[in-house]
């Protein structure tokens, strides 16, 4: 231990303060925590925007917010949730965990890592401050279709700041992705072959590869849009010879892989949590790893299923229907394999496991409603209605956010060295689980009744009112549940200290202390399987016996 002090790099005094040490840090664990905490703040802000929308829609013909404000709310809610919360928070968890899971000292490019965090932070701040721009924030949806997002129809600087903020976050994501890929490819512990890396690392590998492939495409689309608005080009202005549909292709070529960028790390977490709390190995490691790769590949071939109502040629509609259905197969494989993992296990219902089981329960519903919208004639009825809002939240909230909480409850002890309260965690799970289903299940019905998305109000009473009211009440219940998480965090600061391996985990991050020292590991065991910690426990048992 004494030897460690000598290998610590020299730090000038000004970099050692409580604040300065965080600002100047290049340690992957600290950057991971910065990412995670910042993203959770954006989650809270974007969630409050959603609560305002649900308040406005709780009853017909309300005027709680103005029409223009409502349009700002759903635009910034969507943009912030996607770009400022869920994608960066995966970068946060991946930052903290990937080097620990593969037994590395840090990521491949620590300084680049710090830069990517700061780009993310300032991108997010730019987006939120755009509410103060002349004419307010962007009002043309998180997808910003031209011509509506062009200068003539969306005057004011809010739209330009929206573009700028996504550019900044895009740079952040690209740098992060390069870093993760280089780390995973080059810095694995001795013996850790590709079939022995944790499934979460597989997910981060594909997450990074997809980001690297598609972020440039949205950057191009948004740069063209910016040129249209500021320089007078007309890439997307139809009556001046531009093509509005081109933007849709570019946007969704990014936008659909983005959905899998969001869901794959959550699936990775589920693949870590379910085996540990079932006391079994994952059922079909290879099937789950390869299905991750398959989903990543097919996700690049389905983008125009967001555009079935555009009037594409028939052969394209058919191609995109079939490719969208194909992607359901590897997704189904994962779900069946997770359930098979619990078969004859010793199921321990700690909070992380509850979130993981909840993930399977609700993500299945999101997957099945996806079949309806993949069948393009049916999609002609469902697209741009609340049915899609319901479908997408079952996948992105019921999937990604449930997976996120499974991960946070599982790895919190490792990240902060303190245990979260199990009883508060369970109360939070049940409140969010019930609130989530109350919020989003009735939205399927609203869509089928004919309620379009992005309407600031509706005039219909009866069932429309009933379903909307239930949905708003559910949102309130969910908010209370999420508030419990905040309380849990504050309580945990004085809570019990975490041991190295509180859950009897399988993977390498549990080998070191909680929280880990700056250099992560004093020494590493030689990796002989995908479950090095279980191997180690067995060896100790056998030696003791």
């Amino acid at each position: 231990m004494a030897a460690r002090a000598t290998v610590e790099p020299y730090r000038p005094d000004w970099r050692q303060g409580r604040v300065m040490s965080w600002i100047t840090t290049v340690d992957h664990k600290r950057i991971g925590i910065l990412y995670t905490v910042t993203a959770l703040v954006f989650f809270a802000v974007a969630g409050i925007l959603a609560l305002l929308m649900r308040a406005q829609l709780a009853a017909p013909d309300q005027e709680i917010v103005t029409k223009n404000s409502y349009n700002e709310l759903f635009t910034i809610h969507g943009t912030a949730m996607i770009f400022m919360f869920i994608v960066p928070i995966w970068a946060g968890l991946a930052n903290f965990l990937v080097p620990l899971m593969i037994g590395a000292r840090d990521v491949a490019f620590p300084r680049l890592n710090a830069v990517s965090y700061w780009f993310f932070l300032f991108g997010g701040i730019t987006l939120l401050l755009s509410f103060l721009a002349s004419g307010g924030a962007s009002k043309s949806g998180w997808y910003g279709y031209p011509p509506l997002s062009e200068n003539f129809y969306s005057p004011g600087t809010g739209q330009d700041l929206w573009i700028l903020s996504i550019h900044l976050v895009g740079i952040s994501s690209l740098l992060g992705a390069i870093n993760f890929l280089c780390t995973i490819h080059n810095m694995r512990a001795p013996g850790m072959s590709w079939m022995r890396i944790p499934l979460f690392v597989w997910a981060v590998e594909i997450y990074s590869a997809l980001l690297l492939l598609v972020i440039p495409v949205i950057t191009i689309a948004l740069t063209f849009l910016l040129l249209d608005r500021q320089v007078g080009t007309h890439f997307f202005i139809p009556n001046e010879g531009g093509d509005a549909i081109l933007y849709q292709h570019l946007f969704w070529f990014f936008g659909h892989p983005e959905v899998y960028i969001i869901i794959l790390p959550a699936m990775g977490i589920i693949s870590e949590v379910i085996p540990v709390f079932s006391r079994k190995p994952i059922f079909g490691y290879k099937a789950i790893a390869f299905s991750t790769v398959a989903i990543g590949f097919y996700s690049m071939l389905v983008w125009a299923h967001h555009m079935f109502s555009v009037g594409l040629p028939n052969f394209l509609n058919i191609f995109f229907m079939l490719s969208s259905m194909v992607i359901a197969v590897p997704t189904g494989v994962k779900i069946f394999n997770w359930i098979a993992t619990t078969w004859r296990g010793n199921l321990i219902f700690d909070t992380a496991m509850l979130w993981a089981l909840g993930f399977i329960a609700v993500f299945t519903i999101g997957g099945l409603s996806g079949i309806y919208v993949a069948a393009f004639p049916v999609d002609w009825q469902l697209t741009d209605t609340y049915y899609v809002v319901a479908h997408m939240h079952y996948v992105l909230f019921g999937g990604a956010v449930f997976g996120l909480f499974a991960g946070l409850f599982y790895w919190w002890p490792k990240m902060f060295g303190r245990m979260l309260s199990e009883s508060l965690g369970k109360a939070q799970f049940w409140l969010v689980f019930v609130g989530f289903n109350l919020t989003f299940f009735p939205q399927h019905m609203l869509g089928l009744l004919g309620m379009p998305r992005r309407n600031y109000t509706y005039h219909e009473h009866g069932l429309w009112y009933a379903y909307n009211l239930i949905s708003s009440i559910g949102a309130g219940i969910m908010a209370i549940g999420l508030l419990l998480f905040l309380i849990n965090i504050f309580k945990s600061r004085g809570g019990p200290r975490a041991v190295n391996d509180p859950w009897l985990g399988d993977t390498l991050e549990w080998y070191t202390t909680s929280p880990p020292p700056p250099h992560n590991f004093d020494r590493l065991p030689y990796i002989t399987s995908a479950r090095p910690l279980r191997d180690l426990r067995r060896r100790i048992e056998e030696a003791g016996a």
Partner: protein
Amino acid sequence: MPPPVRRKIFVLVLALGAALALVSVAHTGNGGFAPPEPKSPNAERINDSYNWISIFALAILVLVEGSLIVFVIKYRRRGRPRTAEGPQTHGATRLELIWTAIPVLILAAIAGFIFYKLPGIQDVPKAEAQGGPLRIRVDAHQFYWRFTYPNGAVSIDELHAPVNRVVRVEIHSQDVDHSWWVPQLGGKFDAIPEEPTKTWFRAEEIGTYKGKCGEFCGVFHAEMQARVRVESQDEFDAWVERTARQDLGRNEWVGVCAKCHGLSGNGGYGPAIANSSLLIQPQSLRRLLLEGQNTSGGIEAYMPPVGRGWTGEQFRALEQYLKAVVYKAAGNGG
């Protein structure tokens, strides 16, 4: 964890679910568990496809959620030590192949059904006995619908159509993206500038069908509603020959101007215009309607170019109506 708490929540969820189901059953119609009752063959075939998918989706839902619940109950810890392990099975190739192949078959069955139904949904029937389909042009504007009939008649926000007649709807946009959607008469088709699309319907019953704009189009998106009034052939003929022209000015005012400026022109979202002398200056008014207004940089001062694509007749109808009814400046009896 004490099980009673969880049981209470479980009961609560069940009760809420049951209440939801009851509410739905109590109401006429399907309560939002399938698309609205179809009144046109294309919409009907979409509903058939929806129901076909539902058979498989519900079966998979019951299978997955059922096995999840059974396993959760059956293999729970029940006092076993935390360290007790289950059987260390790493997979079963044959089983995994089976649950990869079955979804493929199910999806093939779904895709096959869609292919079978697709021509009946998408292709406009030739309707030779009726002398071909009735062609109606839809122009989507911020924030109203304009319908042009074969004889040049125009209506705003309300499409008239004869019952049991194949209507071919040609969809255009004059400004931003919109989407034409009357749920009971078929699916959505986008109105994108310079990229016309088409759809069709054959309404089987006389009545009024509500439609809404499906693609977010700006501040009044929610008010961009359409009605399809299906009437007998005689009624339709009388309307399209005479009434449409008589009502045009008023319909333009109500559908195009009044959504923002108020029914009497006293202002609403947009400024009060009843006293504006612009209303009786045809040249300047035309320029404003054609070009819109986008001067001060904020969305609040923005006016859409609502008159794009209008004929001289449409402008004249509005001008006459404005002069006769809306304009209230001193000296006009206001």
